[in-house]
Every structure is written in structure tokens, then in C-alpha cells.
């Protein structure tokens, strides 16, 4: 039985029909019952479809330069995204989580699955009038990436605000551990950003940035979920909840 992580790792090759038949079938079976992975697959197919219209394009460098420009804009509007927080399991509407997941996923897919193969497989070529129309498609992809990064930044900012506001109510040892790790992740993001600004074509910088962003979402999700639940008062005995939730898991 494949996990979502297993499936998502191979989704790019699945979309390209590049896996052994057994693996293709196993992933198809998983997708039939997993909405999240199916959504990622749809995004990936959309991006791939657009990518196929590009032909032998020379523009990943431009694209990454644009992302590098964007990364220079450090001022993310923390108030842009207000996320309602309720007690678990309703804490954050499923939609919000889905939105966050999709935003993050789009970043990962866009940066990891689309750009990297584009860079590694396609030889640089000059822009000619023949592919001028294709440049529009590349711009579309660039815009999508920008949008994804923007959404991602808002989501992270919202999560950070929530975690900061309510972190004091969390068990101090756990809170300290999470804060220490968030700081480490921020450092990694900053280093990767700096590297990407200096060398937009660096695959290592790109991969490190996406990894660090993904880890930040992971830790922030855990943090916010913890503080969400600590907001809950007058609820049933928590050990009962632990037992029930443990059964669900």
C-alpha cells in the first residue's frame, strides 16, 4: 500500500507515463481514493501541459531571475490572509488546510517538478520570433510561480502570527523546541534565498529553498494545531480526546 508521500514522489514520472506498469497501476489505484494526491496530479498535468507548449525554450534563466527579484521583496503582508482558527478537529477549516496544502504543493511542484526538469533537459537556445508566442506561456508559468510564492508567503505569515500570539499557552518545553527549529528553518530559507539571488540557476539553492519552505509549513502546521487545541476550554477530558483521536489515527 503506497503512502501519499510515496505517490507524490513518483507523480511526476507517473504523469509522464515513465514508471513500470505495476507502479503506474499502483499510483492510479491510490489516486482513485485520494483527493489530495488527485489534486496534485491535476496541477502537475496542467503545468506539464503548459510546459509542452513551450518547446525548446531558453527562459528558465529569466524565470529564475524573476523569482530572485521577487525574493528580494521581503515584506510579506502578514495581515493579508486571516485564517479562522477553531478547536481541533474543526480547527482551521478543511478548506483552509487544503488551500495551504495546495499553495505549498504548487510551489513544490512548480519549482521541483517543472523547473528542474526543464533546466536539466533543455539546452539553452536563443529567443527568436518563432517562439515569441511561447514566451507568453512562460510568462503564464512565471505568474503562477509568483502567485504561488505569494500565497505561500501569506500562509506562512498567517501561521506565524497565530503561533506567536498563542505560543505562550503551550507547554514551555515543546514551545521552545518548536521555536528553536523554526529559527533554524528561517536561517535555511534566508541562506537559500541569498544563494538563489546570487545564482538563480543553482539547482542546489532551488532545492534547498523548497525543502526549507516545506519543512516550515510542516512545523508551523504542527505548532498552530497545538495552540489551536490549547485554546479549547470546557471541552471533554483531554485524555479521552487523545484516546478517541488515537483510534481515528
Amino acid at each position: 500500500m503506497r503512502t501519499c508521500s510515496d505517490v507524490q514522489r513518483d507523480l511526476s514520472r507517473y504523469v509522464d507515463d515513465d514508471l513500470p506498469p505495476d507502479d503506474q497501476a499502483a499510483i492510479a489505484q491510490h489516486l482513485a481514493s485520494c483527493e489530495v494526491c488527485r489534486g496534485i496530479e491535476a496541477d502537475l498535468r496542467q503545468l506539464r501541459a503548459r510546459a509542452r507548449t513551450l518547446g525548446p525554450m531558453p527562459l528558465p534563466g529569466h524565470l529564475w531571475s524573476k523569482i530572485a527579484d521577487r525574493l528580494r521583496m521581503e515584506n510579506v503582508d502578514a495581515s493579508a490572509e486571516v485564517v479562522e482558527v477553531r478547536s481541533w478537529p474543526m480547527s482551521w477549516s478543511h478548506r483552509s488546510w487544503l488551500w495551504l496544502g495546495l499553495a505549498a504543493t504548487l510551489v513544490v511542484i512548480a519549482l521541483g517538478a517543472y523547473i528542474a526538469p526543464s533546466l536539466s533537459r533543455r539546452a539553452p537556445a536563443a529567443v527568436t520570433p518563432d517562439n515569441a508566442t511561447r514566451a507568453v506561456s512562460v510568462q503564464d508559468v512565471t505568474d503562477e510561480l509568483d502567485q504561488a510564492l505569494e500565497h505561500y508567503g501569506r500562509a506562512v505569515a498567517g501561521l506565524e502570527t497565530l503561533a506567536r500570539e498563542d505560543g505562550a499557552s503551550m507547554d514551555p518545553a515543546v514551545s521552545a523546541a518548536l521555536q528553536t527549529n523554526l529559527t533554524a528553518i528561517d536561517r535555511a530559507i534566508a541562506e537559500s534565498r541569498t544563494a538563489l539571488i546570487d545564482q538563480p540557476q543553482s539547482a542546489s539553492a532551488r532545492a534547498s529553498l523548497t525543502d526549507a519552505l516545506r519543512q516550515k509549513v510542516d512545523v508551523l502546521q504542527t505548532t498552530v494545531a497545538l495552540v489551536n487545541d490549547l485554546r479549547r476550554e470546557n471541552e471533554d477530558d483531554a485524555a479521552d480526546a487523545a484516546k478517541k483521536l488515537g483510534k481515528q489515527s
Partner: protein
Amino acid sequence: MTPMDRTRWIRLTTAIVTAAALAGAATAAAAQDRNYPALRTDRQTRTLTLGSAGSLDLSNVSGDITVTAGPGTSVVVDVTRESHGRTEADAAQGLQDVQVAIETQGDRATVATQYPKTQHGQSPYRVSTIYHVTAPAGTHVKATSVSGNVSVSHIKGDLEVQVVSGNVTVSDAARVTNARTISGTVRLSDVASDAALSVSAVSGDVTLERVKAARVSADVVSGNVRATDVTCGGATLKSLSGTVDYTGPLTRGGRYELTSHSGTVTFTAVGPVGFALDASTFSGSIQPVGSLTLTSQIAHRGSLTGTVGDGGATVAVRTFSGNVRIARR
């Protein structure tokens, strides 16, 4: 961590951390607090007849859990509650309020530390509950705790351990599906499983020794990942700020991914199966170690690709600012 795993993990942690908050965040260390000088202790033992392959679901808030295999077909749960109070009366009240609930249904049992409903203000007592469980080796065990160490040995049934703050130690086990902690270390040794193994810690080291599994994944933010003598069909090992080390034989067709942001990544393949290498670092160095011979080698700006031996497996190794070391023996 998969989205589903993360959801489960978050559900569990939120619930049990709430338990900690409601209970006054009792911890073993806090038990030493001079504000709680009075101590009352209670010990009880329950024997549960679950058969040779029953299921035990044990959840605790504060205190260590130890599970080990024993003879027979019964599960023996030895519980010690230690209540530290401001006064003797408070300590006694703690023992009265904090109870251990045991429910059995067929071959399944649920054991849970239960605290009173919401308390306002600082609790007049702090209670830690220590579990020593002896179970048939085939028992399926799920152990969760907010604060405390969990140690499991010689259990061959399905095993899942999740802790918020504390260390997880598993030895001589099979079918370990999950071992997680937010703050603490995870150490697995002598594990033989035909299932996928997932291990994670936010802050703490992960150590795997003599582990066999269908797949191995380990994810750490601050801490080192060290996998020694690991046999698996594929592996994904990640650390943000720590080192990542992998030593073990490769499976033909398997994919082994090792990633760190700032730590050194060391990969050592053992045995006849070779691998296709894709190594990269932004500001570190890539160092083939010993007599490693790469064919079709391409080295360019912090990246190195090539084939070692028959190229039967795929090895992807990446670090941002650390070094990469590749070896074969």
C-alpha cells in the same frame, strides 16, 4: 511525512498536549519542584488476557512507558502513580483525580491516564504515571505520551510510538510503522519489518541500527540522522541542520535520497549492488572516499553524477552548505 501521517500526528499531538495543559503540564522534572514537597505514591497491577496477538493502546500524559515481551498470553500492566502536592492533602487529591482507565474488548485493550476536567489556575498537584508493561511478543502495541520516554523491546507485533516530549527507544522489534517525537531522540535497533518504516523528530537525533524494512524514511529538523547497517528497498533521510549518514546494502531498483541543508551527508554502499549517483552541494565539497570509482562521471559546479559498479540503484545526495562523502565497501 505524508499529508495523512501529518494529519494523524497533528491530531494526536494536539489532543495529548491539551491533556498536558489541562492537567497542569505535569512533568517528571517538575515533580522535583520544591513547590510540591508532598509525595503520595500508588501502585497497581492489572493482568489483561488478550491472547498471543492482541492489541494494546496505551496513552499517557506524564511519565515513562516501558513495554517488553514476556511469556504467556496475558498482558501485565504495572502502573505507578506519583503525586506531588503542595500539601499532603493536595498530593492525595492528585491520586484521587488522576486515574488510569483500562478497557478491554475481546483481544483489544485500551489503557489511558485520565485527568479531571478543565482546571483553572495552577494545579495544586502534579502527577506522573509510570507504566511497565509485559506483553506477549506478538502483541500489537500503540504507545503515546505527552511527556516521558517510551521504550519498547522484543515486541514483534505492529508497533507505533508517538511522543511529544521525550525519547523513543525500540529494540528487537518487527513491523515498526511509526516512531515519532517532537522533542527528543528516536533510536531503533535490531528491527526487522516487511513494512515501511517512518521515523521523525523535530528536535533530536534519529539513530537506526541493524534495521530491515521495505522502505525507510526519517525526517529531522534539528538533529542528526544516522542509519547504520540498514537494509531496505529505498530510503529518504532528511535533516535540516544536522548530518545524515547512511551505511548499508542497496536493493537493485531502489532509490536512496539523503538530504541536509547545513550538515555533511555521508553515503556508504555495502555489497555488490552499485548505484547511479547524483550528488550536489551549493557551497560544500563532494568527496568520493577510498577506492570509489565512478564511470560516466560528470562534475560541474558543486554537482557530481556518475555510475558506481552496475548502477543498479539510484542514490541522490544533496546538501546546501555541508559536504558530501560517498563511499563503497
